[in-house]
């Protein structure tokens, strides 16, 4: 895989039309925090020790970041916790001052956190209007949009309720609805999709698609790689304040996983941290919908396929794969193994690839699922070659949840019975 030099100033192509200037330009931005080791919080302490200088610890959270985001671009920022991605967003938003220069063109709306400034003692209407004003609407605009906000949040029947009586899901829905009602040319979004149930997440995805279609410029901070790959035209990866990579989201996602799990897709054989003997590696696991398209959110009811791409390091005879699909409570809801149907899978040579597919009717209850794929030599199944976990998860969406672990197709009939028959049954 080609890997551009990880320097922020390399000749990285940015898609642009020749006319328009970029929507956001960040040039040589650094941000350091000076954290006093011993903080003096009172005048008394100052007065008692007027001479003593507070020693400061200096943290460089961002270091010489340069990039540009074109108008209409969906730009992802990935990175581990503490890599500086939120700080970068706050600098672009103008919440933190930073060294270097930042230009923005157009009205900016920031959602660092949903529901900032919501007051628990007020009902939905007051909060929506106030929050709208905070995010930059005029009071009249904010009031005008109230109906569509409450409708989008699906909270019409709870509009009189004070916010403190809302469930956390309702709260977040309301907050998100307000945030997206604010007209802005540039949206700065910090990991807001990690909230809400699957159905609402799906709705958020749709909104993001719409925003994309409207040509809004979006900077999106996340550590969910599927989302990054699904939405972003381009992305950058931050690690300890440095820009490690900028470019194709897929490449960024790979680099991210590598940083996060110490997994290098190119040199998997050398990776000893993973279980198994390493004769082969599961490179990738994904889910396809009935049209054969890769998805991270799938509606219930389709026939879907879970696939795993395997790369053989040495010759392997009759390899077998099994999959366990865990739900959010880490309970396996689906277990399938290749040897049930293909006892002899054949011989694979070193360097060859194979794709294992598990197709099933998606009756899974709505929620998030993470598959674990085990690759093993033929036999007892203990002879593990490789195990793939934590790398990928997908969401099943449904219009309504029945409450079971799975929603098996169920036919319900009701018929009247005579007393005699009833007696027979109970007897």
């Amino acid at each position: 895989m080609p890997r551009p030099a990880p320097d922020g100033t390399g000749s990285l192509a940015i898609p642009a039309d020749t006319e328009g200037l970029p929507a956001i330009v960040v040039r040589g931005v650094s941000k350091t925090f000076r954290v006093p080791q011993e903080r003096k919080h009172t005048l008394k302490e100052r007065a008692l020790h007027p001479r003593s200088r507070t020693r400061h610890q200096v943290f460089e959270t961002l270091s010489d970041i340069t990039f540009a985001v074109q108008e209409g671009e969906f730009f992802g920022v990935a990175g581990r916790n503490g890599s500086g991605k939120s700080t970068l967003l706050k600098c672009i938003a103008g919440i933190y001052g930073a060294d270097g220069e930042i230009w923005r063109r157009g009205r900016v709306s920031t959602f660092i956190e949903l529901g900032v400034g919501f007051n628990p003692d007020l009902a939905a209407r007051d909060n929506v209007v106030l929050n709208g004003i905070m995010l930059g609407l005029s009071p009249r605009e904010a009031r005008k949009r109230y109906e569509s906000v409450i409708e989008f949040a699906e909270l019409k029947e709870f509009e009189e309720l004070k916010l403190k009586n809302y469930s956390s899901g309702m709260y977040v829905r309301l907050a998100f609805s307000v945030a997206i009602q604010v007209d802005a040319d540039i949206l700065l979004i910090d990991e807001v999709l990690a909230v809400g149930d699957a159905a609402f997440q799906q709705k958020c995805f749709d909104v993001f698609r719409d925003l994309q279609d409207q040509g809004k410029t979006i900077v999106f901070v996340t550590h969910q790689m599927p989302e990054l790959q699904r939405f972003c035209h381009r992305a950058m990866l931050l690690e300890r304040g440095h820009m490690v990579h900028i470019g194709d989201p897929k490449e960024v996602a790979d680099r991210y996983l590598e940083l996060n799990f110490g997994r290098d897709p190119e040199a998997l054989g050398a990776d000893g941290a993973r279980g198994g003997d390493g004769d082969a590696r599961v490179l990738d696991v994904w889910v396809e919908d009935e049209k054969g398209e890769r998805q991270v959110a799938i509606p219930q009811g389709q026939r879907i396929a879970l696939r795993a791409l395997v790369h053989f390091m040495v010759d392997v005879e009759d390899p077998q794969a099994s999959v366990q699909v865990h739900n959010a409570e880490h309970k396996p809801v689906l277990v399938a193994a290749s040897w049930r149907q293909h006892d002899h899978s054949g011989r694979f040579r070193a360097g060859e690839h194979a794709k294992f597919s598990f197709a099933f009717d998606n009756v899974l209850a709505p929620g998030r699922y993470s598959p674990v794929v085990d690759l093993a030599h033929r036999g007892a199944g203990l002879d593990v070659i490789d195990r793939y976990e934590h790398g990928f998860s997908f969401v099943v969406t449904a219009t309504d949840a029945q409450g079971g672990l799975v929603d098996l197709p169920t036919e319900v009939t009701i018929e009247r019975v005579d007393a005699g028959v009833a007696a027979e049954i109970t007897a």
Partner: protein
Amino acid sequence: MSATTVETIPYEKLGRPIRGPEALTDDWRRFWHLTFNIARTEWKLKFYGSVLGYFWQLLRPLLMFTVLYVFFTKVGHFGTGAAAAVGGPEHFYPAMLLGSIVLFTFFAEATSGAVRSVIDNEALVRKIQFPRMVIPLSTVLLAMFNLALNLIVVFIFAFADGVRPMLSWLELPVLIGMLAVFATGLAMLLSALYVYFRDVSPIWEVITQILFYASPVIIPFDEVQQKLGPTLQHIYMVSPLATVFEQFRHAVIYHAAPRASAALGGNLGLLEPIAIVLVTFAVGFVVFNRTAPYVAENL
């Protein structure tokens, strides 16, 4: 699609880079909307859900008034001298007392409310970009709302006491304006200092108490005058609070009460308290403006 690189961006065409967080803004409409609506929300919350909310809010100045009135007229025998000196009726003292208490309550609410305001709105400061000055200003505005309500009661009370409308009532907005500018200056100063020094809050409580007794709230100035030497007298009257309260008595309640300027030795003397107000405002503004960009990081 053509491609540009970071190097080929025509930086000179981009105009001015953004600046970090600031105290003020170019978008004054939003500034005002924010200030007004934050104050309005707080105000609503105070009265929300209780029909008696308004009366509860009145109760504090009224109770204070009752206690002070009973104590100082029945026990301390204040308030009689003023009337005696100019030969007017004694009964304007209650209206004067209530008026001064209400004005002082405004000052105390605005300033002590502002002390913690930036910290109390930490979530906003850290997560939303908006002109920081909105925060202390909205606390002053909130106190203004309360003042407006309380003044209604003062006027009813004064009317019942025999005070009749006079042309000098037109001075009232100017007096309130002066008090508000003074309070705003202190609000900016205190809220900025509190971010760095948490003992500003108890210190300011003490100072507020001192100011209460060091201003002609309970005791009209002409009675104090008899007991203080000229220097102390001057120090006493040079406080903007004293000037406002004294002029309030003269202009709104009882025309025979001395003007603030009389106590300061002529109209030119008024420049001193006015200068104090303006300097306080300027210092407060500069301090707040300086700290505003770093507030989000130093909370």
